């Protein structure tokens, strides 16, 4: 796998995506559920931004918002989602009407998404081959024979043995991880400007996961694709991401380069997340949970993001940040 480059924040701003103060709510009988509450981040061209965070913190809802796939009773209640296609005018996805042709342009080529649960993206009644070919035909001007060719090639690249025969099968005849790889193949054949990958490797063993991560890296180098990578696997983040945002209850609590966030987490939630990796605990013992790591400290009160001395953003007070950057007195 290619080396992670850990460039400091680029001086020339060339972003593919800028999300600014995004708010998404679900209006339910229980009241307004603020699933995403003032989230801002950007994804640089050719870079990979990882979002990690608590289960239920709004990662998938953020991704769905970028594709404008939030459905009633959910609604984007505020903020901007700007996509910057190369050499074309910027598109604010949040402002587009439901039937705006630009929206199809965004979904159908500029941005493609690997869904967290493969069956949301697959039809149970069509063969896998037909579904991948359809995706290709929708986005590229090729003959059906050529589409089939490309589909077989992509299935090979995601590690499906015997792809010709597998094309004729239905999703239920695939294992969980094979379905996930079909969805990855469908997202990659479109050669998007921005790839959103929502937990793309949870159903894969680590050897195939490594291959998929390499494939995404190759695509980034070949085509300059940017990636928004949602995962809870810190090992995967360390391998693939340039930048990391940590989400907790609908907000970002820490954002910086992968080395900043993983090697020296500042926010207590980030520290808790890194501390709870089971590999680090003795077998058979109780695992540290967020509660045990936080030890009674309350982080539920939202705090504004401030810039730390090393340039990252973190939701802590100035004094709390300073404390962590003052060298300990020997």
């Amino acid at each position, binding site marked *: *796998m290619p*080396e*992670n480059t*850990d460039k400091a924040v680029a001086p020339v701003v060339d972003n593919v995506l800028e999300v600014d103060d995004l708010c998404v709510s*679900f209006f*339910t*009988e*229980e009241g307004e559920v603020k699933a995403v509450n003032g989230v801002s981040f950007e994804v640089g061209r050719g870079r990979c931004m990882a979002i*990690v965070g608590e*289960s*239920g913190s709004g*990662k*998938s*809802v953020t991704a769905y918002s970028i594709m404008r796939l939030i459905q009633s009773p959910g609604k984007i209640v505020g903020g901007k989602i700007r996509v910057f296609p190369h050499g074309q005018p910027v598109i604010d996805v949040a402002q587009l009407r439901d039937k705006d042709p630009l929206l199809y342009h965004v979904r159908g080529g500029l941005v493609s998404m690997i869904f967290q*649960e*493969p*069956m*949301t993206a697959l039809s149970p009644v069509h063969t896998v081959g037909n579904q991948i070919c359809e995706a290709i035909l929708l986005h590229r001007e090729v003959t059906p024979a050529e589409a089939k060719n490309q589909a077989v090639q992509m299935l*090979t690249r995601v*590690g499906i*043995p015997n792809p010709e*025969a597998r094309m*004729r099968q239905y999703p239920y005849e*695939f294992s*969980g*991880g*094979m379905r996930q790889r079909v969805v990855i193949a469908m997202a990659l054949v479109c050669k998007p400007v921005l790839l959103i990958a929502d*937990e793309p490797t*949870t*159903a*894969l*063993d*680590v*050897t*195939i*996961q*490594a*291959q998929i*991560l390499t494939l995404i890296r190759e695509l980034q180098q070949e085509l300059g694709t940017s990636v928004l990578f949602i995962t*809870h*696997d*810190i*090992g*995967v983040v*360390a*391998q693939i991401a340039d930048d990391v945002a940590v989400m907790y209850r609908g907000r970002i609590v820490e954002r910086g380069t992968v080395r900043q966030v*993983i090697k020296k987490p500042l926010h207590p939630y980030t520290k808790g*997340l*890194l501390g*709870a*990796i*089971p*590999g680090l605990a003795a*077998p*058979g013992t*109780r*695992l540290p*949970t*967020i509660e045990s*790591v936080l030890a009674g400290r309350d982080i539920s009160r939202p705090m504004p993001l401030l810039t730390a001395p090393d340039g990252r953003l973190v939701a802590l007070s100035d004094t709390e940040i300073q404390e962590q950057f003052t060298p300990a007195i020997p």
Partner: protein
Amino acid sequence: MISANSNSSPTASGNLLDVHDLCKYFPIFSKGLVPKRIGEIRAVDNISFSVRKGETLGIVGESGSGKTTAARSILRALTPTSGQVWFDSDLFGRIDLSQLSEKALKPLRREMQMVFQDPFSSLNPRMTVGDIVGEPLVIHGMGSRAERRDLVASMLEKVGMKAIHMQRYPHAFSGGQRQRIGIARALIMRPKLIVADEAVSALDVSVQAQVINLLQDLQDEFGVTYLFVAHDLSVVRHICDRVAVMYLGKVVEFGPTEAIFSNPRHPYTKALLSAIPQPDPDVPLRPEAMGEIGDLNRFAGMDMTPVFHPE
């Protein structure tokens, strides 16, 4: 113990489950208007192992190697092509589940529950979460309506969700929340055996820690036995007593967890352990350890004989 010799007594004591020569084949059909059966996929090809009472047995392996098919065949969500699955039931004593009818299985299902790999397709979208989690209680006629409600509420809280979530439908939850709904449903019957297929794969490490601690508490308190299928090797190392490694439908390595992790001997196990990504951007993956996936010859020339570690 792994029973390499399948004629070992099916009544071996101390085991909750004895799986003997289990096979599950799926037919492959030809193209065309009148499809003909032209072959079969040997998803599970002659596997044998035992699960001791109160232990956690991990199953790891390549994606597509037959882990889900094996788990489903054991709990009889599928009917095996051949082989036996001996289960030590409280109600019926030792009994072979492999060819029982659905009717005969029903009372046994109280004692064994499954957490399915794909929470999206395994939760009924038209039922509220309260009904989904409480359904096993209804099926087996347990508790009054109010008692069931309380049980469901407390179970949801144990997996880190809230009682008010009972009224919502599955689509109104995140991936990890749906996964926890499946876990709550399996735990509510307090079964003797839980087969968990990628049950914590969508959870962030902190919620995952909470669920794993819960599973271990239940084991300590009630002696629950787990068959734990998972890709996350750090979780497997943490909670499993023994591990079976599957590759292309077969068990290729079996033994105590520490023996497998510290001294992997089968080429696939070695490749697997070398591909774990470290949570450190300065420790890159070693690509040479992986070989091309999908390339069935990637282990060509290597000794592929199954390895059974001594206890």
